């Protein structure tokens, strides 16, 4: 095989490979969206996190503003401590509340942030004081059944 032909084919091969990598990074992956790497961490204490997982999105008004970094159990307060990293482009007031929500009926769980009215903003290491736990289906059904039973008792 002539050297020029080899060079041409290696050129085609390497260019195709790099183009494929670039396509994967830009078109398939989320290289252009929120990067949790540079941002600030805040945490919240939740009574029950349901099925929340690390790397789940943190959304505000439906827009992804950060990601969950870690979930640990706090054995002093017997709650789940959820640490999340928020993109440094987004600032939230100090009294922002966090709740665990589900996207769709079978979708994944995420943390929703609702901005408060405080004038000072959240900074690295702050705690989100107002939290709302995940809805646990069994508890919901239990409450519904108790409610029904109470209604039935009252009617008699």
């Amino acid at each position, binding site marked *: 095989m002539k*050297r020029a032909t080899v060079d041409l084919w*290696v050129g085609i091969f*390497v260019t195709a*490979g790099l183009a*494929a990598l670039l396509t994967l990074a830009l078109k398939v*992956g989320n*290289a252009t969206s929120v990067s949790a790497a540079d941002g600030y961490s805040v945490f919240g204490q939740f009574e029950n996190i349901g099925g929340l997982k690390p790397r789940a999105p943190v959304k505000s008004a439906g827009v992804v503003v950060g990601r969950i970094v870690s979930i640990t159990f706090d054995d002093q307060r017997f709650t789940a401590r959820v640490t999340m990293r928020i993109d440094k482009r987004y600032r939230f007031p100090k009294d922002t509340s966090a709740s665990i929500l589900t996207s769709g009926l079978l979708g994944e769980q995420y943390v929703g942030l609702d901005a408060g009215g405080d004038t000072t903003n959240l900074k690295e290491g702050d705690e989100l004081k107002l939290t709302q736990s995940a809805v646990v289906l069994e508890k919901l059904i239990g409450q519904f059944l108790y409610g029904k039973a109470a209604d039935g008792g009252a009617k008699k």
Partner: protein
Amino acid sequence: MIAALDRGLRQVGHIVIDAIWKLGAATRFSWLVFARSSESVRRPQLTLNEIFFTGALSLIIIIVSGLFVGLVLGLQGYETLKRYGSAEALGTLVALALVRELGPVVSALLFASRAGSAITAKIGIMKATEQLSAMEMMAVDPFARVLSPIFWGGVISMPLLAAIFSALGVFGGYLIGVVIIGIDSGAFWSQMQANVDLREDIFNGIIKSGVFGVAVTLIALFEGYDAPPTAEGVSYAVTRTVVTSALAVLALDFVLTSFMFTGV
């Protein structure tokens, strides 16, 4: 009774010692290939020729199989996802399956059978016809001149081949999902982008294919170098290369996956 036990134990011992001896030889061989690789950098044409041989000539089989794996994943994934009313998640399914597992693993298996077997045959015949000894006679180091460039050629080609495989697979999934079945194109791409992470998924997939490239090329080189210098010996060595590389790729894939994708 005692004699049979004695013979049995001797056989076990023989097998174990042989295996350890071969492992040691393979390790020293790998180290030599690695240590004498300066020539591959100083004379890039040697490495380029090997990239052409192992990489560019594998393009056709990688392109065709990547596309068809994507097409099949699209069809089968759609059939299952449709039942749960989440056909838009097809993009996520196809992309994650390809980028994390199928891309690196299937392209490594194809690479082992297409390029690995050729490498073993080449080295085995060079050894059988005493071309390697002739090089040593002329004070040309066969490790630096022949084996190292092949190694680096394989290591460079493998991640590129896996990336081409994954990209074409995703394109195949797109063809089936969006063009033929008619899933909304925006939902297909946006769900994929929301769930495929650049570092966790794509970067780890590239690392995997790099590790497979090292493993497959080293196995192919060693089997060729270690082959008995006969026609039969070379043919057995080629068979062993394909079988051993396939097993090594699958075992390494399990180990790497359990390290990379825990808790996700």
